């Protein structure tokens, strides 16, 4: 069974513009924190799935700062950000997890973590055979950071390496906060 067979939305015309609820975010953040926002001039070469999704192992990465209740939280108070990341077992449930964050609303995620980190939805899709499997761990970090160069050298590089070499992911879902 593919994702398309499982009640996914019909094909959407990519030229159809969606209206962003909060417009001009990049400009707003860049004006308040000059140099903190990133733009790139070109795309990276696109990778392809080697097999169907039903035979692929997925990893999820989130900037929502979610973690096991038994783990120490990342540092949301540091003015430059926290350049570490945490592993979240892909078998975790809502009641095992907690969010510590400052820069986005998480009242609804506190009621149901799947609003921002759909870990239980992914578990269900594995049970149904839509996905081949999940990596043993997912990854979580704090999205706020004031040093994009350091972020690219540390968090981005470290997570990318772990995803490929330790977790052996075939594909990745990234969920910002």
């Amino acid at each position, binding site marked *: 069974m593919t994702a398309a067979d499982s009640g996914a939305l019909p094909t959407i015309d990519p030229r159809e513009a969606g209206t962003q609820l909060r417009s001009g975010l990049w400009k707003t953040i860049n004006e308040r924190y000059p140099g903190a926002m990133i733009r790139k001039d070109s795309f990276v070469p696109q990778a392809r799935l080697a097999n169907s999704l039903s035979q692929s192992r997925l990893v999820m990465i989130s900037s929502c700062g979610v973690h096991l209740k038994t783990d120490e939280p990342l540092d949301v*108070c540091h003015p430059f950000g926290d350049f570490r990341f945490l592993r979240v077992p892909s078998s975790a449930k809502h009641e095992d997890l907690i969010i510590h964050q400052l820069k986005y609303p998480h009242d609804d995620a506190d009621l149901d973590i799947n609003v921002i980190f759909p870990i239980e939805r992914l578990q269900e899709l594995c049970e149904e055979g839509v996905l081949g499997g999940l990596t043993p761990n997912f990854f979580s970090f704090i999205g706020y950071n004031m040093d994009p160069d350091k972020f690219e050298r540390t968090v981005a590089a470290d997570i990318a390496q772990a995803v490929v070499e330790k977790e052996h992911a075939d594909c990745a879902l990234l969920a910002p906060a």
Partner: protein
Amino acid sequence: MSVAYLRGAVARGDLEKVIRFVRLHLGDGNEAVGKDEVDRSWVEAVKILLREEPVDRKFIAGVLEKDESTLALLLFHLHFYLIRKSGRWIHDGSR
């Protein structure tokens, strides 16, 4: 501001830019709110001390022997701790 931008501002002695950054961080992206938040955390500290409860000065003395980087970061943690105690929490990402 990015860290690189802040380093430049400190090197030039442009402290206005640095305090603007602090207010933006503490004000969830709003400088005026951040200025107010700084006042609120100090007010909250005074309110707590007005209760005249026992304090652990030995602990404070021990903490002050830590390295300056840890103590500088502690200042930010203490600010947010006092803001939570004040009962008004603005950090919902809406600004």
